[in-house]
């Protein structure tokens, strides 16, 4: 594998709400071997759940489609890894990304969305970058630095 990439996975699944649990469990399993804290693991699970939920209900308007989760684990320093996760959809896209990312902003008021999805992602991950174009889709790129120590040492 190229450079300092330790591991990578790509998961493609149908945009149905059952798969929200699937995506976050796969993400958790992907980093479970790293000896990280339970809190860090839950942070990643929550962020993935938010991004996938967004893709399903906003990107595809709950009418189905394909969501792709790309996760890459890189060795940063000896005792730290960088996890990056991309959640991609080819749905309707976001008109105003900056506005969408504001806390409490929601277009899903009738479905009782709290408008806290992006805020949760930003709170639980170190970096969140959203690239979107109308009718082309959205990519949510998230990074988190995970402190690890080698079990062999």
């Amino acid at each position, binding site marked *: 594998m190229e450079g300092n990439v330790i591991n990578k996975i790509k998961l493609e699944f149908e945009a149905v*709400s059952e798969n929200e*649990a699937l995506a*976050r469990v796969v993400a958790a399993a992907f980093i479970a071997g790293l000896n990280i804290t339970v809190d860090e693991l839950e942070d990643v699970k*929550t962020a993935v759940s938010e991004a996938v939920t967004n893709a399903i209900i906003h990107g595809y308007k709950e009418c189905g489609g394909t969501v792709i989760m790309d996760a890459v684990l890189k060795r940063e320093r000896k005792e730290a890894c960088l996890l990056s996760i991309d959640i991609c959809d080819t749905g309707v896209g976001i008109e105003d990304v900056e506005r969408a990312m504001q806390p409490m902003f929601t277009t899903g008021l009738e479905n*009782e969305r*709290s408008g806290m999805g992006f*805020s949760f992602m930003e709170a639980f991950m170190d970096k969140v970058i959203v690239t979107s174009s109308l009718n082309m889709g959205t990519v949510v790129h998230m990074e988190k630095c995970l402190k690890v120590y080698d079990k062999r040492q």
Partner: protein
Amino acid sequence: MLVLFLTFLILRREDRQMEAKTREYAIIDNYLCIKMPAEVDHHKAAGIRECADKMILDDKVKNIVFDFEDTTFMDSSGLGIIIGRYRKISCFGGKVYAVNANERITRLLTTSGMTSIIEVL
């Protein structure tokens, strides 16, 4: 004979389903107690919302208690459920409580500002 036995089994299963439902949603005085599932996400939210709202309409519930005893995971969909129920009952002077939440969910509720509309016990 077989038909009878099958009917018996189906009836018993329905009984058990009813029982499970009453365990998840109980009304004590004018408090509706909702037992939240192990994982609260968008997938589970619709069912909880529907059942809770039916009980609110049917049984003249004033206050709502969300019991997080079994809950190990919650994302922002959980906040949506709480905010929605709060909107429904607060105009009649009702209150919303969250009980038995673990450390992470308690932190989630406090940092997201939910404690201004609900009481975490």
